[in-house]
């Protein structure tokens, strides 16, 4: 990947949340642990995984809605956060070392986010909880315009709000109404208009269609695609529904318990997945086709996802993985490039065969 095309990149991103205890006994939920990836301009990167795997935390941490515990966030070539504790990366993705093989660390940085907020926005999952019930739709959308002072006059502000609403398939008469007057799909449109108000380049879409009915879901997914075409947006599209993510994304990252386990082009990932977790995830999706569904052999994973408070040693997936052995318990697998642009983290890639 050429450094020129990359819009946003995270390296060794880590996010631990304190979960009680003091001093030595202090415990942490390891929500995101050493995740690295880059998103190109105009691209959609999908993030999938089960609940609690850290996909939402990755999205929010990238916008610095949470302050990362460790790692580096680079936006449009500028470092917007660096903990100063993790090694810099070479162009080929490996860690940078000095002459003696010691890692070269970055410089501790934390920039003021206000100018970046205009360029990085988020659409939240729950359209019922993410809109202030006491504000009109016009004011919700207009708030970003006010904060960034991007409108010169009242008339300009109003025109801009109306054009934003029209952009997402609503109209001017909706501007004076309140959120409770809208259906779920319409509210999600308002959420998207709000994100667009700041005129961003990059939008984190945090499960934007999960709360919607199928028929409405398709409308909203199409709208995301149209907006991307028109405005040249870049998305991080987070969802647990692999079929939706596959539909909208150029590339997909699969997460399990705070780690990225596989990252590939979306068609490649569905057709030729190599990680045992990805394989079982794909086979678990109920297919809306009775003949295929009857014939399909499911790989049913045993057990539940372990607690992120106390994740298994080594490979996090080993407690549910049919291939796990001592190596998996002892050592955490690193991301390896299986074929061009297809990365996976597993010790037994050569053995995996369902």
């Amino acid at each position, binding site marked *: 990947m050429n450094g020129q095309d990359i819009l946003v990149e995270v390296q060794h991103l880590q996010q631990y949340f304190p979960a009680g205890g003091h001093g030595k006994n202090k415990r942490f939920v390891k929500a995101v642990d050493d995740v690295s990836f880059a998103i190109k301009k105009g691209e959609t990167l999908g993030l999938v995984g089960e609940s609690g795997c850290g996909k939402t935390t990755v999205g929010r941490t990238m916008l610095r809605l949470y302050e990362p515990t460790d790692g580096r966030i680079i936006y449009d070539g500028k470092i917007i956060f660096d903990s100063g504790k993790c090694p810099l990366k070479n162009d080929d993705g490996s860690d940078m070392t000095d002459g003696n093989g010691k890692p070269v660390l970055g410089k501790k940085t934390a920039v003021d986010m206000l100018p970046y907020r205009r360029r990085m926005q988020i659409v939240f999952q729950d359209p019922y909880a993410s809109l202030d019930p006491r504000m009109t739709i016009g004011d919700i959308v207009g708030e970003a315009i006010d904060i960034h002072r991007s409108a010169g006059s009242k008339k300009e502000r109003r025109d801009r709000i109306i054009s934003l609403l029209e952009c997402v398939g609503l109209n001017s008469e909706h501007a004076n109404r309140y959120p409770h007057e809208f*259906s779920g799909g319409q509210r999600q449109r308002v959420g998207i208009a709000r994100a667009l108000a700041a005129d961003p380049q990059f939008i984190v879409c945090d499960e934007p269609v999960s709360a919607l009915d199928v*028929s409405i879901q398709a*409308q909203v997914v199409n709208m995301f695609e149209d907006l991307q075409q028109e405005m040249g947006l870049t998305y991080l599209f987070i969802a647990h529904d692999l*079929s939706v993510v*596959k539909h909208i994304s150029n590339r997909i990252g699969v997460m399990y318990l705070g780690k990225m386990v596989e990252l590939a082009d979306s068609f490649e990932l569905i057709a030729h997945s190599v990680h045992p977790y990805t394989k079982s995830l794909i086979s678990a999706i109920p297919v*809306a086709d009775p003949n295929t569904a009857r014939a399909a052999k499911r790989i*049913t994973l045993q057990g*539940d996802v372990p607690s992120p408070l106390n994740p298994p040693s080594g490979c996090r997936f080993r407690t549910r993985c049919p291939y796990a052995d001592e190596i998996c318990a002892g050592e955490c697998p690193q991301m390896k490039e299986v074929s061009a642009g297809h990365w996976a983290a597993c010790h037994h890639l050569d053995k995996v065969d369902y």
Partner: protein
Amino acid sequence: MKEKLLDIRDEYLSFFTPAGEIKALNGVSFSMDEGEVLGIVGESGSGKSVTAYSIMGLTAYPGRLVSGSIRFNGHEVEKMSEKELRKMRGNEVSIIFQDPMTSLNPVYTIGNQIEEVILLHTDKTREEAKKRAKELLELVGINEPERRLKQYPHELSGGMRQRVMISIALACEPKLLIADEPTTALDVTIQAQILELMKELRSKLDMSIIMITHDLGVVASMCEKIAVMYAGHIVEYGTADEIFYEPGHEYTKGLIKSIPKLNSSEPERLVPIEGQPVDLLNPPKGCPFAPRCGSCMKICLREMPEKTELSETHYSYCWLHRKAEFEKGGGAE
């Protein structure tokens, strides 16, 4: 003729709210034989849960059955007294609710909650009930049942809790199990486990299941018959193959087209159903789907379509089936 296990005829059910009458069900009719698995699909607000709850006499205030009849196992449900209903619920019909997090009582142990059902409906002693509870947990695939019986709901994961809910529902070997979105709150890998379990239990215990869901994928793998609901109407009913491969109603077609396909190898655009879901406070005249329908005719906006039988097991309510007739006669246009 042998009586059907469940026979619902022309059920009209409304919620009388301060804002006006919400017509949740507008003439729902269907029947089920013993051992059948029926899937009810539809969007939120289409009336699928309301239909299922009314079978158990669980319609919540201010809802009321306006007309029609529900016969379960030869009894009229709406004529049953509260005492008779109690006897039926949990014993002959059981329900698994959508959210396993909130449908278990947090202050009682799992064992306590399973035993309660057994003690209430059978004359087993406490000891026997405990033994049965242990068997049930084994049946639904929970390991270390002895230990689990003493645990509280918060100590279990979502999938585990749903298994406990299923074991409670199965405690008295019901003839009919209603599963109201049993896997919607669960992750895909756990959903796959629960669906496998339900299939296995069904062949083991030989019961009928009504599976309520909005996920077409779930019904495709589980159900023999499918009813598609829209705005309080069953708009189409048929076998799984008929619904998926020869859908008759425009809404069903739209629904199938609007789900992204996982195994397609080229990028393709989704075909959504345009417009917003119906407002049940003032439903449109005529066919409720007409305002969102791509091939809407004049008659659709005026009159509710009649039932058209497409095969012995397949029917749908849509004027388009009779379009050819209209064009010949020129009457309806």
